């Protein structure tokens, strides 16, 4: 398995920094009441999605739950489009119609942003079903939290995925808490990965605070799926530093526990690895961090100065009547229809 170049690891570190700075700024803007609704931050979990996207192609499908800002950023959605979405602006990745929990970016193959726990796992099955139907070698990455694994739709989808042998990597971002309920209080299993065994899906446990481990494990799994379509399950153990959402002070866990994980910070860890190996200087790190901060500050300005959709536009987003939307490429649709036709003949 070919390892990513050193340059790429520094890029991925920069992406983790962008995610963290974005989330910190989102938190601040939420407190300033510039952002409405719910807002769930990804801080602490950066290595999971960054490691995962480092393992796939640009045209592989990615779908996740409501803690989704990072997944869009990791997929290449601009900080501007993400921040504008939080601000409810027309320049947002979902035109300000989805909000924090519903980030979509068709061009970058980011399929949401789904806020009903577990309800997107069947969608992932459908996306992978479509890849198989067309004879494509695309892989679907389906992210969900530890809270999703006790939902009926999750179980129905896992059975369908295994039964039809679909090319999905089921990625459980186990951050130990479903809202305020710890895994110990929600789940009958000793370890979450055992859920996969019940459906004959191979499963592994991965350290989600270690970018390299996530990337390497996912690279291996994705490579094997690409060769011979099949499902896989990874329980990626991680930790969110903030509460479940902005309104949660997280009083259900101890300061000591939080400190323990902070010491194992995924950004600090990758930085130390790269520095030790002489691949990154302190100046280079600071430069990257400065750039991330600037990008995020600029995104706030962009969001603030962006327009909202006019109210009468709401009626345009109920039924699709063949109008071409930004990001919806009719050419792409025709292409896929042609591919399906070829596969059927």
């Amino acid at each position, binding site marked *: 398995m070919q390892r990513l170049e050193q340059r790429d690891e520094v890029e991925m570190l920069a992406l983790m920094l962008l995610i963290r700075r974005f989330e910190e700024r989102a938190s601040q803007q939420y407190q300033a009441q510039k952002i409405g609704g719910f807002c769930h931050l990804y801080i602490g979990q950066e290595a999971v999605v960054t490691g995962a996207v480092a393992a796939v192609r640009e045209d592989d499908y990615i779908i996740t739950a409501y803690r989704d800002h990072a997944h869009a950023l990791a997929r290449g959605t601009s900080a501007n489009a993400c921040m504008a979405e939080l601000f409810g602006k027309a320049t947002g990745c979902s035109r300000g119609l*989805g909000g924090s929990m519903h980030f*979509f970016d068709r061009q970058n193959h980011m*399929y949401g942003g789904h806020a009903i726990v577990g309800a997107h796992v069947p969608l992932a099955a459908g996306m992978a079903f479509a890849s198989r139907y067309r004879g494509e070698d695309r892989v679907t990455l389906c992210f969900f939290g530890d809270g999703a694994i006790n939902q009926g739709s999750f179980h129905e989808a896992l*059975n369908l995925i295994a039964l039809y042998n679909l090319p999905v990597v089921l990625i459980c971002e186990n951050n130990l808490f479903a809202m305020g309920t710890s895994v110990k209080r929600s789940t009958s299993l000793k370890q979450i990965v055992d859920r996969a065994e019940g459906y004959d899906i191979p499963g592994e446990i991965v350290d989600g605070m270690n970018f390299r481990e996530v990337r390497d494990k996912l690279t291996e799994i994705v490579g094997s799926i690409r060769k011979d379509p099949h499902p896989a399950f990874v329980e990626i153990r991680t930790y969110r530093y903030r509460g479940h959402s902005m309104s949660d002070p997280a009083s259900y866990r101890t300061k000591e526990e939080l400190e323990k994980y902070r010491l194992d910070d995924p950004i600090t860890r990758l930085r130390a690895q790269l520095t030790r190996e002489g691949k990154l200087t302190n100046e280079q790190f600071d430069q990257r961090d400065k750039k991330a901060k600037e990008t995020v500050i600029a995104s706030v300005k962009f969001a603030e100065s962006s327009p909202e959709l006019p109210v009468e536009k709401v009626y345009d987003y109920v039924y699709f009547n063949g109008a071409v939307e930004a990001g919806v490429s009719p050419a792409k649709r025709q292409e896929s229809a042609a591919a399906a*036709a070829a596969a059927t003949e």
Partner: protein
Amino acid sequence: MREITYRQALNEALAEELERDPNVFLMGEEVAEYHGAYKVSAGLLERFGPKRIIDTPISENGFAGLGIGAAMVGLRPIIEFMTFSFSLVAFDQVVNNAPNMFMMSGGQFNIPITFRGPNGPAHQLGATHSHATENLFASVPGLKVCTPATPRDAKGLLKAAVRDDNPVLVLEAELLYSSKGMVEPPDEELLIPLGQAEVKREGSDVSIICYAQTVPLALAVAAQLEEEDISAEIVDLRSIKPLDEQAVFNSIAKTHRAVIVEQDRAFCGVGAEICYRIQKNIFDALDAPILRVSQEDVPIPYNERLEKFVLPNADKLMAGVKKVCYA
């Protein structure tokens, strides 16, 4: 034109759309090897193969969601519910995912999916298996709901549903699968636009607004009324959403009286919406209050006599028509 059954008409629609578009596939419980619980998909597995006619486990929520995911990336799934009573298990997917995606994604993802299967009370199936679901689904923005009553409408509406770029529910009438009617020959393309009602019988004294299983009921009652010199016009809505209110207004402008006969319950129902629109738009055309004949507001009992009492029936409709005609 030739005479075929409602079941056969649906089968033809499926076959024609599968033939026309390789992105179309049929998925559901028992649709392939068993040929469908109501035999609607007979012969399709043999003709189109297991890649496109797909049996599922009993997991409505799972396979409804699978269909929506496949639609997000360009396929055009037809998802069969063995009955729409079972669609309630998949309510989250049908109500939360399929119709919301377009708005939530800012217009990036429309969901071209057809959910189809028998709907409405059949005969002595008890409360869990007797749901009419049109009221529930018609109240959801982003969904389209059609309710064919004849073989011709069943074929034309199902084909239109498959070609629609939005989630469409084809609520087939469980009791009408074996009913017969005239349909264009297979070499003639039959598409019936969603949201277009049809006058099934012309009349001058009273409009009976009906759909699905209440259409044959209304036609039978109209024949009886004829003998008593009451001329009833039968307006078959065919689609609940979009609703062809103009067809309703046109009929009432002529007859000045209306009875709405619905297979679902009255409370928060289709008939309530139609009454509202009539009084709002053509209040002056009415010579009598509008009357509704619906299910009683109770879970459906198994006992045959009680079930008949609960459902809309000929006696109730006849009495309703006479009342609005002051006859």
